[in-house]
């Protein structure tokens, strides 16, 4: 890259994938964001909308903070699993998409023709894997607040290498350089498995931090909080919150 970088946050640049593949991921991204707009309407209310805006801001900042990984590589937060646990999966898709748009347009981080690819990989795949794994792990662990952060960390751990596999699939379909898919796959998965550990640590710590202060603002903790209200204060009148309908 001819560009001098102070911060080496790199998304898929222009040129890695050919035009048809970029166009196809663009269509997927637009469809995904359109669905997310409908889903986020159910997740967001006057109380959670400001929180969601701040989560997007936090992910943008977090993505600048590259952490060293072995042998001269670094990784940075993708943020899909983190955002999903904090504000819900549909809103998380929008959080990461806004971050990627701002990065592509203002920071020249990630190509503009590759925006659909980056949204597909990090906003759609990253959030979907992070959220689904989170929900599965949450179902297995005891119904306690202390289970939420570890569940989000496991989601984060897996979201990074799976997004890397998704990139490799796109590269196999429409990569412009004649490099063997097997080589790319092996390198992508091994490095991003290591980066996933960093993603898991950051995600777990941030979710645990928010839960310690304001568990009611953590979307992924709502079923546990609702269960706790029932167990601990059986005589207490149910709070009028949107939790129940939001779970639909």
């Amino acid at each position: 890259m001819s560009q001098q970088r102070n911060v080496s946050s790199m998304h898929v640049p222009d040129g890695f994938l050919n035009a048809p593949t970029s166009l196809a991921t663009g269509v997927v991204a637009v469809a995904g964001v359109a669905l997310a707009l409908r889903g986020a309407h159910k997740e967001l209310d006057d109380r959670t909308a400001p929180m969601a805006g701040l989560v997007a801001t936090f992910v943008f900042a977090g993505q600048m903070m590259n952490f060293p990984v072995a042998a001269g590589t670094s990784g940075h937060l993708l943020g899909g699993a983190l955002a999903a646990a904090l504000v819900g999966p549909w809103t998380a898709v929008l959080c990461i998409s806004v971050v990627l748009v701002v990065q592509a347009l203002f920071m020249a981080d990630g190509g503009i023709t590759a925006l659909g690819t980056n949204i597909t990989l990090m906003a759609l795949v990253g959030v979907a894997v992070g959220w689904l794994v989170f929900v599965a792990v949450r179902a297995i662990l005891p119904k306690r607040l202390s289970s939420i952060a570890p569940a989000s960390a496991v989601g984060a751990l897996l979201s990074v290498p799976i997004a890397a596999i998704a990139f490799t699939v796109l590269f196999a379909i429409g990569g412009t350089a004649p490099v063997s898919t097997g080589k790319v796959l092996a390198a992508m998965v091994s490095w991003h498995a290591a980066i996933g550990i960093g993603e898991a640590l950051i995600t777990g710590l941030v979710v645990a931090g928010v839960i310690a202060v304001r568990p009611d603002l953590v979307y992924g903790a709502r079923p546990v909080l609702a269960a706790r209200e029932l167990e601990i204060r059986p005589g207490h009148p149910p709070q009028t919150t949107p939790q129940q309908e939001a779970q639909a």
Partner: protein
Amino acid sequence: MSRPCVSRKAFLIGFLLVALLIAGVGSFYASGNPDGLEFVAEKTGFLDSAKDSAAADSPFAGYSTKGIDDVPLSAGVAGVVGSLIVLVLAGGLFWAVRRRGSQDAKDEGEKTPSGA
């Protein structure tokens, strides 16, 4: 403990300050090594297929601010400006998309001391 120990406003302001601190100051201490994708692209030989972004002339391209030579300041300004752009765009989007109504009940639920 389900009774919040920090008001929502204080929490949100704190959250914003942490984000701005990371973007404005912390990012300077970030690792300058190539990230996973860049490293793999270089190692397996497809990094050269990258083209410069059409946004490469943006005043904040590459997370450095044009016209500021001091490196930490240049990166910090780019980080803070970028964060604020995200805050305005995402905040505006979520405020527009949010569910309306049923608000009074929630505000009361938050203000009323809930047992404990």
